[in-house]
């Protein structure tokens, strides 16, 4: 029995994994949102079963529920039930959302990276690292929160690394800030998430997360290599 549960659990988790999966978080923000999802999923399953169960009962068991007055049906189902469900959910989501914001942090300044989308590629600039730039590869240090300042050179794009955090739009004429943190070194996948024309499907990028002590050197190497490649 336990083995069966473990197997099915593993199968479920395998079904949730993938390079772009929001359910296989690799950072605090994605983790928080995934938790919110699992909570809401559980609630939704219960509510769905409740309403469909009631539908089945009132149709196939004539007279079932007729002892509850019509007004009570409406008040309980239409006001009380949504109230019980929604108020805590809204409060929880509000707090969860506040915690994900790129607010100034205590003590140390959060490093910044500028991300600029264009049809159909991404350029990343690192003001704290001598202003070097990389194309379609974003270099981050593990365990360090980073603020990504996202903008666009032409049409609207969206910056999204599903395993790390939610997305933010890249709007021409504006700069939007998103806080991202990767817990472990490794490679993560990012993509444009706002329809931007012919190349939308292939407007992807890679996030390389280095150990903090290797970060500066790795970034400098990559930027230099890219610069050399251009020449």
């Amino acid at each position, binding site marked *: 029995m336990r083995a069966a549960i473990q197997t099915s659990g593993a199968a479920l988790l395998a079904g949730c994994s993938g390079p772009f999966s929001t359910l296989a978080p690799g950072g605090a923000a994605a983790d928080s949102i995934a938790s919110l999802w699992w909570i809401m999923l559980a609630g939704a399953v219960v509510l769905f079963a409740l309403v469909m169960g009631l539908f089945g009962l009132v149709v196939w068991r004539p007279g079932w529920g007729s002892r509850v007055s019509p007004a009570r049906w409406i008040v309980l189902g*239409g006001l009380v039930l*949504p109230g019980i469900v929604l108020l805590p959910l809204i409060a929880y989501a509000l707090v969860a959302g506040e915690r994900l914001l790129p607010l100034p942090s205590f003590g140390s300044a959060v490093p910044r990276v500028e991300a600029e989308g264009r049809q159909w590629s991404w350029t990343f600039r690192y003001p704290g690292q001598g202003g070097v730039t990389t194309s379609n590869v974003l270099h981050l240090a593990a365990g360090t929160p980073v603020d990504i300042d996202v903008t666009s050179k032409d049409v609207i794009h969206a910056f999204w690394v599903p395993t790390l955090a939610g997305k933010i739009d890249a709007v021409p004429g504006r700069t939007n800030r998103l806080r991202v943190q990767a817990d472990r070194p490794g490679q993560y996948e990012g993509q444009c998430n706002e329809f931007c024309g012919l190349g939308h499907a292939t407007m992807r990028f890679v996030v390389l997360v280095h150990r903090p002590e290797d970060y500066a050197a790795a970034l400098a190497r990559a930027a230099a290599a890219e610069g050399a490649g251009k020449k």
Partner: protein
Amino acid sequence: MSGSVEQPPQPANALRLHRQLAAIWATGPGVQRLAAVNHSVLGLRMMITSFVFFAIGGVLGMLTRVQLATPNSTFMDAGTYNQVFTMHGSMMLFLFAIPMVESVAVYLTPKILGTRDFAFPRLTAYGYWCYLFGATILTVSLLAGVAPDSGWFMYTPLSSNVFTPGINADVWLLGVTFVEISALSLAMEIVVSVLKMRAPGMSLDRMPIFGWYILVTALMMIVAFPPLILGSILLEVERAFGLPFFDPARGGDPLLWQHLFWLFGHPDVYIIFLPMAAVLSTIIPVFAGRPLVGYRAIVVAIVALAFLSFGIWVHHMFTVGIPHLALAFFSAGSAIVAVPTAVQIFAWLATLSHGRPRWDLPMLYVFGFFFVFVAGGLTGVMLAMVPFDWQAHDTYFVVAHMHYVVAGALAFPMLAALYYWLPLLTGRSTVQRLSTVAFWLVFVGFNMTFFLMHLTGLLGMPRRIYTYTGYESWNWLNLLSSVGSFIMTIGFALVVIDLVVQLRYGRRVRRDPWRATTFEWAMPIPPQPYAFASIPHVGAGTDRTEAGRIALSLARGEGYLGAARNGWQETLGVHMVSGKPDQLIVLPQPTYLPLWTALATAVAVLALLFKLYPVAIVATVVIAGLFVLAAQRSGHARDYGPLPVGRGVSVPPHTEVAEAPPWLALICVLVADGTLFASLLFGTFYLWIAAPNWPGGVSPDPSRLLALGAVAALAVGAVASRLSLRALAAAGGAQGWIVLAMLALAGSIAALVGMMGGVTPDPRTHALGATAVALLCFVVVHAGIGLLFLVSNLLRLAGGRVSPRRLVDFRLTRLWLDYTTVTGVLALALVLALPALVSVLGARA
């Protein structure tokens, strides 16, 4: 006064009455069908047309599923795919969903409310033709390979002329706006008709719930469409003439488009859902065998839903960079929408629980609705939670959610309605086995297609990508979704086959086969063009009487208007709230005028599309002329005074009362127009406050003198129009005042055009100038329409169509000119104040 009017003869027998009324109301054969104005004819036509576009849109949807079934598919290239998915969404929303719910409203509402037709049959026809022509333009663009390709919400700058230089985006902006003319005109007609044209005695609080839903839906349309129409006009002007409203480099803001689009787009979801809820609230009580539970609660719920739906558009924009606390407000609002929805769901459950439910085919589809709508509602609450939306936004999770609440919650009640009302149209019942199989195919196929998309989205698949490489772990889910979509399509095909079989081989049904209590079943099957041989009276207990029982008495002419008179197409107007008869409405005969007007409109739209602006101007003049001509043919050339309408009641014709349908229609027009104006003000303020690249110390110098002159001239026009009304009421000469008003309006137009010439900064270089021109244009157009009103007044005065008792025309003009003056003052004040406002906020890059 009514001496020459034929008196109603003795109660005729049913057959004789049928022949007389049929001769008066019938649409002619052959080519004369193009002149049809009858709601049954047009409602059916519109329904069939919308199903044709459903089929085309469905095929487009299938093409996307073929493309996405496997990774790296070469079935379509990116360019083709972009056109296909854009047109799938645009067609399903604008060419299928909205016209389909409107066609249901057009066909059923007069019958359910116990009246013979809608208030403006020629407008119904014009709306239908605009829909058909606009939809045809869009479809042809698809065949020509130049269909819109920027996604159905047309986000700019992608849809601007820089990034979409071809004709594609213009097709969308002009074609969809053309179709929206039809949606808006029908919405106004529905509001006026529901309020003024019901069976006598049907007060608002005992109107069948269907009427409430349709009324609220139509009111929502009147307020929802103008922001999108304004947005489309501004974007088209930016594309065609280079006036920046959305270009961030020149002081515009692409987010303004998103605000305007979703101000329409979100209410639109409820505009589609509410008529389907109307269907459910109508048929669930029939199958529960008892009246609907919680009638008042439902009315409150749908009104609340209508208001809420206008306050939550920002939940489509959670990722554009709006501050989180502002998002929280819209998030809570979006979640609270669940309350009025839950009220309806539980009222339906309570109705079933307190009745004795019987199971029949429509109930199977009601089950389908409950299943998909509850699921879609729950994912809707999830998406309303801001952090979750940051992940799920613009992924297949949203595609899944949206298809559950819009496609599923539309398709299942629609098919329930089809199987419920088809016996009324065809006089035959369905072939059960086929319809049940069709249901299960649609149901299983639908859920297989769209349920899996939730997971595809959570695994990170963005919407609108034309392909993927195969390592993303999306392969199986996409393949299964595609298989599901084919199963669903087979189900829909089976529904079509079922309909054909039903038409040929279905058993004939008796009158009122479902034992319903609404009036559409109290008429001959299939319905005649006059709908009711005589109009029912709603007295105590009528709403609980099976409709079939009163049908015979109505057919014998024992209700109101149970006799033919003067060859008039007569129906009754009632007091809006109490339902007491207060006027005899005489409707126009079939005419080709709507067709010609719609053709001229199509020419204007095509001319704008191909940038043949002189042709567009000529076509616009022709359209204006045709509208004035249509006005000349309305009403009566003499006073009648109260006329007997049966059951001992006498009421004056609609030409001689204050609360005539045209008066209410103009109020609806002004509400829509006022929403457009408010959207324009909102846009101007929005750009001033939020757009990038605004200068600090510009000193544009709009001519105060010209502005003052324009305002003064508008005021003179409004006053002169009042005086012309007063003169007419006192049987004095009104021509002089009308001419004075015309001169004043012409003067104001000249002053405004002069101002436009002097707008700085050059409207092509900065949004500050562009918004000023837009505001001035708004006033010019309204003054111009005011001139048309005055021309029509002069003509009708000369033709004897107005009199001291027939004042409606002049009252319409007065109202229009008052409105023009008020909006003109506001617009000009803003134009004058903008430069000062700009220096208040200072420069920003």
